[in-house]
Each structure stands twice: as structure tokens, then as C-alpha cells.
């Protein structure tokens, strides 16, 4: 936790200095983000390709419900899908609604002994809030890269700011996103089991995101950064004619940008790749029809096993005495020799 915190603070400080030093603004405001985008895209594709290079030798879905067998037994079409459609449905549930996490329970050992299992959906709830709010915030940011701003984004902002609190209007997504991140961090720190398994590379993305979202919230609500100037700069990047605007931009914006760039660069090489990996998980993305449909293992080794002939050779006399049918009788075997 401590190492990650220091790392994030140092990164933020460097970005601040870069943003505050006129000679470095081009580097921090334009070069670095563009490199980050390239690294992210190339890295993401490379990782997926690398996974896809290894085959799936066996079809090993984890079945979460009744198989399809006899006509009169109702199968679990989504938790134990038999068809491709069902499997797509299972994946959609998994990716869009975090189906497996929704099952989560918490076990408690009481005197007796008695094990009690509680439904525990907090992680599911906050994980879902985090991911969806992040998506909304991500989409809202397209207003900085598109001119004119698409109607859809405007509508989204209207809904997002429906509470009509303050000026500029408070977007719920940003606040919930920040809250969800804090929950996920506190959970990691307070739950003994989680603290024990957490690595610096678990804290780092969380703190980085907190920095990213925190700086974003500050820019909008506290620093009230000059949106027009920022858009001039982002549009420059979007239209591939990047330049630093003449009017000054708060160094805090460079911090925001610095965190984002770091996130993009780190993404393909970190656990954040679960975003792509989930689609390739063979316990989820395969149908439970393995007895009905052939699945090929590209490296299936040749069959080597002890044959019946070898077995009979070994036990022929005993088998004969016991009256078991034989391919070659002891007499025939003796005659051969």
C-alpha cells in the first residue's frame, strides 16, 4: 500500500511540475498521452493475441446449474448453457452484471462449531457501480474530442446531472465512481483476508484511479478549469494537429492527464487486463455440451495404453480358470510358442 501510494504521489508531482514548466508542457500534455494511447492499444492487442496463441485443449465449463439431459428436467440455460446462444447469454450476464460475484457469500465460524454463510453482495454492488460509472465518465469525456458534441452525450449529461445540484451541475457518475473506489480501497485495507493477499500492484491501480478521478472532480468543481482552453488542446490531439493553447491551463490538468497516461501504459501489463481476459476464460465461455459435441485438442498425444491383448497375456491362465471368455485360449497361446 505504502509503496503504491508513494508511487502515485510522485507521479502526480512530476506531472504537476511538467504542467507548470512551460518547456515541458508539450511533452506532458501531448507527447506522453499520445504515447500512452499507442502503448495501450498495442499492448492490449498483443496480450489478447498472446493468450489466443495457446489453445483450449479441453472444454471445461464450470457448471452453475442443471445440465440438459432428459426432456422433462428443466436445464439452467444460462448458468449451465448447452447451446451457443446460452453461452453468449452466460457471458453477457458475467460481463454486464457480474453474475458470479452476485453469488458471493461470507462464511463465519461460530461456536458449536457452526458454519454460517451470509449473502454478501457489497463487493458485487460496488464493483458494478465502479465499472458502470467509469464507463459513463469515459463516454462523457468524448465531449472533449468531438465537435460538435453528439446529442447522445448531451442527453447522458442531462440524466447524469438530473439532481441539479450546484454550478457546474453535479454529475452523479463522478461522485459515485469516487465513492466506489474509496469503498474498494477501504475493503482491501480493512478486511484482514484481503490485506493479506493484496500486493502493491493491487493498490497501485486503485490509488491511481482515485488520483485520476479525484483530480478530475477538482478540475470540474473546485479548480473550475477553463474548459474551452482544455478542449482546444484535446481537439488538437483528436484532429492530429496537436498544440499547447496560448492561454494557461492549470497544472492540475496535467496531473489528471499524467494519471490517465500512466493508467493507459500500465493497463496491458497489469491485472487490469481482466477486462480482456474474462472473454477468454474457458470455464465460462464454453457450452456444457461436452458429451454431445466433439471438442478438439490440437496437441492431443497419440494413444498409448495397456491393450486388452497385453492384459490377457498377463492373466490368461487365471482368467481361463475363472471361466472368463478369452480371445486366445491357453492352448492356442502354448501352441504359438
Amino acid at each position: 500500500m505504502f509503496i503504491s501510494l508513494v508511487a502515485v504521489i510522485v507521479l502526480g508531482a512530476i506531472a504537476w511540475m511538467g504542467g507548470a514548466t512551460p518547456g515541458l508542457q508539450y511533452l506532458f500534455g501531448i507527447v506522453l498521452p499520445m504515447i500512452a494511447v499507442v502503448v495501450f492499444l498495442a499492448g492490449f492487442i498483443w496480450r489478447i493475441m498472446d493468450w489466443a496463441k495457446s489453445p483450449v485443449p479441453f472444454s471445461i465449463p464450470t457448471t452453475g446449474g442443471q445440465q440438459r439431459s432428459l426432456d422433462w428436467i428443466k436445464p439452467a440455460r444460462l448458468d449451465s448453457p448447452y447451446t451457443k446462444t446460452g453461452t453468449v447469454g452466460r457471458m453477457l450476464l458475467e460481463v454486464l452484471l457480474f453474475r458470479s460475484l452476485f453469488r458471493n457469500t461470507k462464511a463465519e465460524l461460530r461456536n458449536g462449531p457452526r458454519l454460517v454463510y451470509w449473502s454478501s453482495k457489497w463487493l458485487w454492488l460496488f464493483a458494478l457501480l465502479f465499472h458502470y460509472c467509469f464507463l459513463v465518465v469515459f463516454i462523457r469525456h468524448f465531449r472533449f474530442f468531438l465537435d460538435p458534441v453528439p446529442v447522445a452525450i448531451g442527453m447522458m449529461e442531462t440524466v447524469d446531472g438530473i439532481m441539479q445540484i450546484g454550478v457546474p451541475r453535479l454529475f452523479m457518475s463522478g461522485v459515485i465512481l469516487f465513492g466506489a473506489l474509496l469503498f474498494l480501497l477501504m475493503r482491501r485495507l480493512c478486511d484482514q483476508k484481503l490485506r493479506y493477499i493484496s500486493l502493491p500492484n493491487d493498490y497501485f491501480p486503485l490509488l491511481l484511479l482515485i488520483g485520476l478521478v479525484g483530480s478530475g472532480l477538482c478540475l470540474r468543481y473546485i479548480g473550475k478549469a477553463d474548459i474551452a482552453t482544455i478542449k482546444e488542446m484535446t481537439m488538437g490531439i483528436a484532429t492530429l494537429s496537436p498544440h499547447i493553447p496560448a492561454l494557461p491551463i492549470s497544472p492540475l490538468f496535467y496531473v489528471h492527464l499524467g494519471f490517465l497516461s500512466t493508467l493507459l501504459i500500465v493497463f496491458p501489463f497489469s491485472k487490469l487486463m481482466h477486462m480482456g481476459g474474462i472473454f477468454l476464460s474457458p470455464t465460462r465461455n464454453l457450452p456444457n455440451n461436452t458429451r454431445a459435441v466433439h471438442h478438439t485438442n490440437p496437441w492431443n498425444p497419440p494413444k498409448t495404453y495397456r491393450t486388452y491383448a497385453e492384459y490377457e497375456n498377463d492373466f490368461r491362465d487365471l482368467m481361463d480358470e475363472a471361466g472368463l471368455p478369452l480371445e486366445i485360449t491357453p492352448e492356442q497361446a502354448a501352441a504359438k510358442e
Partner: protein
Amino acid sequence: MSKLPKASELAKSISYAFPKVSWMDTKPAFAPGTWCYPAKKDTMEGLGMPNPHNWNPAEEDWNLPENWEEIIYNALKDRLEKYRSLKVFLDICVRCGACADKCHFFLGTGDPKNMPVLRVELLRSVYRRDFTTVGKLLGKVVGARKLDKDVIKEWFYYFYQCTECRRCSLFCPYGIDTAEITMIVRELLHELGLGIHWIMDPVSNCNRTGNHLGIQPHAFREIVEFLCEDIETITGIQIKPPFNEKGHEVLFITPSGDVFADPGIYTFMGYLMLFHEIGLDYTLSTYASEGGNFGSFTSAYMMKKLNAKMYAEAERLGSKWILGGECGHMWRVVHQYMETMNGPTPACMETPKSPITGTVFHNAAATKMVHITEFTADLIKHNKITLDPSRNADKIVTFHDSCNPARGMGLLEEPRYCIQAACENFVEMPENTIREQTFCCGGGSGLNTEEIMELRMRGGLPRGNALRFVQEKHGVNTMACICAIDRATLPPLADYWAPGVSVTGTHELIANALVMKGEIKRTLDLRQEDLPGVEEDE
């Protein structure tokens, strides 16, 4: 063997408070009762396993081959290239902790490294350092560590404290399956000549004699005939099951534990009685007399080698399809691996069709192997057999879902339907402990050995606790299952955590209730104990 503490003492010793030091700095203490006896050198040599040698987990030096680091590196590299599952599972875990308290071994030991996430982290840390740039550069900061002999010991300790039950995989938001990792790490350990006796001995037996217990063909027949004598005593009906005979429609394969071990034998008697009653055209085989597959706890190669006999025998005997008995991991292998490994099926085989009801098992169109509870449920549904549940009236029954049929197959309703047709009283255990959320018996994946009895009882705590709950609340006195390992592991578990509950196979219950044509008035159940109501009659 270490002494087993009392249940109450063992329960008190469980603490979920974690040590202050990082998991990378703790080492397992190889205390008696926590590790399995090593495989014998002869056994390993006989099977052609790599680097067979004498060693003892309790000793400091495990006599690893000189280039052991290179062996592991190459083996891991090979598996990464062969299994997308391995790569993806090592890369995408976010350590959210959803799996942490889902593992029966964690719940029963409180050992943090028994949390599925940390169990996999034991391998992941080495993978990070040897196979990722970030890990190479940043080392411990990103959870990477150097492979050393202590890591090998840790792997042996903890990957033989995983029963490949896949409960964690159900709860993982990305479906990360520790069973998959355990299977692969055990393969890595086998490359160094490290295996356990309780797995490798059955593998060797199965390879040579056709079954894990090493029963030779003539003895196999004798044992089955003994069981038939018992059936005659109970029902007055003489059954002569065919062995190794060609030209029968069905080849029946069940775990050899059913033939040999109490209470599995009663289940086996149940199969024979059912087949006799419906006039099934079947044969048993002494060559393919093992449904279970301890090879699947060894390596993909060994799993394939042992399993190959099933289709080979079906081809030799000209069977149309295979009917499979009650077994857990056997059905994981049959359902998810068999056709891929050893298919396509021999030309003589057809999509299974019940000769009694005409039901076609389209769900087994490729593998051509049907689970006995699918088969029997279909018989019951079509009223093809007469069951008298009052013969099981003394039993208040609950059902233990085996891990593999539950989470590697989805066989949940079929056995329940059979049991409920054969019994008057059926009660479910709490919902977080059954069906796809079922808990392991504590001895799956080849860990059903005596020397780790304490560990098994710890791993069996969640199951034992759920059983105890329904015992106290509903008076449950019988736990049914569909797994031969369960039939071996659940009796000691029940004696320990819920004394007074007996364990039975599903087809034992069926056969008790089965009204057979030409039978004498039944007064005894399959265990030759009085049927309920018998004394009052006389």
C-alpha cells in the same frame, strides 16, 4: 499416523486470524497428518514417470534431480503454450477475495495459503518472475519471487491440499479454476519425480489389472459372485452378470470401489438388481473394470492412458454404448475429457438409447456414455420399474452433491429424482452447501488416504456441519451420494462431525425399494438388516 483430535477440540483450533509476516516469508511445517506418503520409486519406474527416486516429505532434502530448476521452467513453459486456461488464470486475477472463504480446506484449517487465491499465487509468483517482464524488472514489489526448493515444498504441501472441487471457480468473477492450476502444478511436481503413494499406486494398478484396487480378473469375478449370493439371500433371485462377453448392447463401467469396499458394494448390488429386473442386455468387463481415473490426478497424459481402455473395450466387445456407475471424478473425465482425448468413438457405438423406454440420450451423442442416474431417472419417469419407498421408511435421507457431477457436469436433478422416488423422507441440506455450491467430502482428487485423516476432517468441516444441521433439525440419518470416493470418505466424516448418520449410494436406495418379479417377501435391506415394519409383522 498422527492422532486425530476430538471434533470439538479441532473446531476450537481453527482461527481465521492471519500471521503478521507476508505469505512469501512463511513456510509450511510438514507436521504428521498434513501430508501424504510419497509414491514408491518402483511404482513410478513401472509407469515410466520421470525422475523416479526415493524421498520423504518430512526430510529436509527431497533428492531432487540436479537440473530441477530447468525442468520446472521448461515444464511450465510447455504448459503455458498448451493451456490457454493457465495463461489467462495466471494473468487476470485481481485478488478481489471472493474465493477466499469458499474453500473447504481454508474453512477447516484457517491456513491463509488454503485460500484459493493464495494457493494459485504460489505458482503465479514464480510465473511472474520467469515469464513476465514486469515481474523480472520489479520482483517482489509486483508479487514475483524466485523459484527455490522451499517453493517446491510449498507446492507439494498446498496442491495436495486442494481436492480440485472447483467451488472457488464458481464464485470467481472470471471463472479462475484452481482445479486446473492444481492439475498442472501436480504435473510439474511429477516431472521432478514427486508424487503421492495413494494416487500412484492405484494408477499403477489400474494400468496393469484394470482397476485401482488391483483386483485381478478371476478375483473380480469371485467378488461379484459373492455379492450375487447376498442378493439371492435378500431377494431369492439368482443373478449371473456377464463378464467380458461380446455382443451385448451395453458395457457397464463403475468405480472398482463399488465392487470392493463397504458401503459401495451395496450400490453395486443395486446396479445388478436393477439390470436384472429390467432385463438389460449388458456386460461387465474385468479389463475396463475401473470407472474412476486417478490418472486425472496425475497428468493429462496419464488420464488419457487409463481412460483409453473404455473405448478400446467397447470396441472389442462390440458394445453400442457405455453405461457409467455412480462416481464423481470419473464423470468429470467422461463428461469433459473423454471424447476429446480418446474419441472419436469406435464404429460399433451408437448414440445411447434406452432399450427399455426408447429414450435417446442426445446429450451423450458424441461420448456415447450415460450416467446411471440419468438412465434410472428415465426408467422411473416412464414407470418401467416398481418402487416401494416404504422399505426405506426408516431413513430420513439427505443428498450430498459430489463436486465433479455438480460443477463439472450439472447433474443435479437426476439423482434427486431417483432418491425421492425410492424414499419417503428426503431433506435438503442448507442451500449454500448443495447443488452447484456443494462442499467437498474433504478427500477428493486422490486425497482420501488415512495418513491425512485430520486434514480430511478439517476439509470435511463444511460438509459435516451442514449434515449435522439437518441431523439436528430434521433427524436426518442417511446421506446419499453418487460417488465412490464419497462412499469411502463420508462415513468417517459423518462419524466425526455428525455421528449417527450413515452413508449410502443412490442405487442402494433404489434397490432396497425395487420390487422385483419373482422375489421372496423382502425382510432384509441390502445390508441384511431388517426392513422397517418387519418386526411388527411377525
